[in-house]
């Protein structure tokens, strides 16, 4: 057991999985000697060498495309895209191929590969370093879309993703990389994909969040408990797709109220799918309309305005109060 931040926890998962399985390799821009621009692949190159930890040329399409080829051959590549904003350069390889080989070859081939990328706000940089694009991947059949909320879930889910026989898009919230440290067990821990966690039980309202927004949701729940005396149930989604409908629906059947929080723009985002799922399965339990707290439907206008756009505790508290007062 050691207290690790999310960078170190992810790094531990990579070290251990590479030790365990010689078919696991790492590929991406600056993942080798540099250890990744966020240091998630630190020391892997030293330990496993340049053939297993590949500093690739600067080409996202070829990183994913060649990884598809390696996966078809039986290897298990863990690819890093430096920022999620640069994954559009390989979107065709992901959608056209990684997600479809199982169907195209009718089960003869599949792509056991993980595509890691940092996403979300919190760095003071130019365009494409701050956006949240999980909705694009969650919409693609054949892909799994995973977003941990801290060091321990990051470690467990990355192990789970590497061992998963399907291609997994693995988003890492930049704001969480160095945020908090958590106890992470030394022995390998695996978290199953497709399973949400109820991180706090409550009877009055279900608050659904993931990634960096989980902390915001938990803080909002605390404010509501302290100031309004209400009990909020907080769900950490962990896997966006396939969505753990059962956990979400069971909770809302109990509380009758739901608020969903995400950093991606509101329209056609994960919140819409979650809300529709609740409507389909728990309509008669609902006491109030489902609300979404999300970024506005705008393009990045510079980090100086990021704070106003990304959901914060006050916004989540306000949305919950309106839902509770309905």
């Amino acid at each position, binding site marked *: 057991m050691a207290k690790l931040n999310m960078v170190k926890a992810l790094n531990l998962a990579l070290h251990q999985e590479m030790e365990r399985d010689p078919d696991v390799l790492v590929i991406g821009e600056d993942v080798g000697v540099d250890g990744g621009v966020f240091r998630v692949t630190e020391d892997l190159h030293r330990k496993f060498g340049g053939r297993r930890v590949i500093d690739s040329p600067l*080409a996202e399409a070829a990183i994913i495309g060649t990884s598809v080829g390696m996966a078809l051959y039986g290897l298990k590549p863990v690819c890093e895209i430096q920022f999620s904003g*640069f994954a559009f*350069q390989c979107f065709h390889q992901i959608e056209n191929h990684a997600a479809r080989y199982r169907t195209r070859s009718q089960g003869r081939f599949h792509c056991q590969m993980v595509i890691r990328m940092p996403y979300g706000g919190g760095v003071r940089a130019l365009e*494409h370093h701050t956006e949240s694009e999980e909705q694009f991947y969650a919409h693609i059949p054949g892909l799994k879309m995973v977003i941990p909320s801290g060091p321990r879930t990051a470690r467990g889910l990355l192990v789970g993703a590497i061992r998963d026989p399907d291609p997994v898009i693995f988003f890492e919230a*930049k704001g969480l990389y160095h945020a908090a440290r958590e106890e992470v067990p030394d022995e390998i821990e695996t978290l199953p994909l497709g399973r949400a966690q109820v991180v706090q039980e409550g009877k009055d309202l279900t608050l659904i969040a993931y990634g960096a927004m989980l902390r915001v949701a938990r803080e909002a729940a605390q404010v509501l408990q302290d100031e309004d005396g209400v009990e909020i149930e907080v769900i950490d989604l962990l896997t966006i797709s396939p969505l753990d409908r059962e956990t979400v629906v069971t909770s809302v059947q109990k509380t009758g109220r739901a608020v969903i929080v995400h950093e991606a723009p509101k329209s056609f985002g994960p919140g819409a799918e979650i809300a529709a799922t609740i409507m389909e399965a728990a309509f008669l339990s609902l006491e109030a309309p489902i609300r979404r707290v999300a970024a*506005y439907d705008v393009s990045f206008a*510079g980090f*100086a305005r990021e704070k106003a756009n990304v959901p914060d505790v006050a916004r989540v508290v306000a949305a919950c109060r309106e839902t509770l007062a309905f």
Partner: protein
Amino acid sequence: MPRRVLDPQFVIEHLSILDSDGNLDTALEPDIAPADLKRLYRAMLLGRRLDERMVRLQRQGRIGTFAPIKGQEASQMGSVFTLRPTDWMVPSFRETAAMIYRGWPIEKVLLLFAGSLEGGRPAPDQHDLPITVPVATQLPHAVGLAYAAQYREDNVVVMAYFGDGATSEGDFHEALNFAGVWHVPIVFVCQNNQWAISVPIKKQTHSRTLAQKALAYGFPGIQVDGNDVLAVYAASREAVERARAGEGPTLIECVTYRLGVHTTADDPTKYRSEEEVKAWEQKDPLTRFNAYLQKKNLLEEGLEEQIDAEIAAAVQRFEAMAAADPLTIFDHVYAELPPHLRAQKEELRERLEKDVERRADEELPPPLPMRGQRKTSRWQN
């Protein structure tokens, strides 16, 4: 004969005019008017001084992450200097000196790096695209501009900038291919600064030069000493003239070196040696050009102080700018605000008003502007 050598033979030239020891090839020395030589040097020095100032501003948390240009002044200025204001300039993200020369006010550049896209808005009469961050993606746009200029029969040349790493991206190859097929008036300027973050050129390509990549697309490529402003200028002028005369595209590979960090979030000690940097410091483009001008008696007294004062005044104007108004995030998403965005804008307006009321109630000081934020992590300053 089943197997024979094809004609034409492909040739790649390397051009160097003024080397780091001050040796000058007078036969190749370009004819640049004294006033222009002075302007060129001033722009390079401004680039260097501003760069140093920006690093400090970033360390102080007054601007965000940015990519310094130190070492690449000759590559940028020698090339951009051959353009007319009516020509188009398409930057990547490391062309501060060239951008200032093209008319971007310093305070605007600072504003962009302080996280406000207003800083990236070109003036109405400026034929420059804003910075493009996704590597190589601006190159097809540059080819499109050149096609459009040709279509309209305008006397316009397009110059597009990118790095060595960019030559690995599909967009680079697709852009060059289109440029060759369409035979458009464009000059591709590759600043081969030896590194793409931590990846050295050797791991980026197995080609001997980057210039030769042009040959595959049917137009000339030339390698120049990118720290020799005279060589960069000579090659660029030739390429621009060719383009203007309807003779099609050129690729110029400027062999240079990034003397500083990749960006302010980078730590180069992880991947390159001190000796390598020291060796390239000996080839500093400014030192070389300075000595050349000295011999010609063209160095201005007090130039550095004058430039520093200009930068200081711009920093002051930048600091005096009003804090970013969050409501403007809705302003340029569409030509006309659709109803759902109007509603979202209204929601934000109410939130901001409540915030002000709440702060007044609680008598809290207003939140610090982003520009003044403290250090947190590498990527957060």
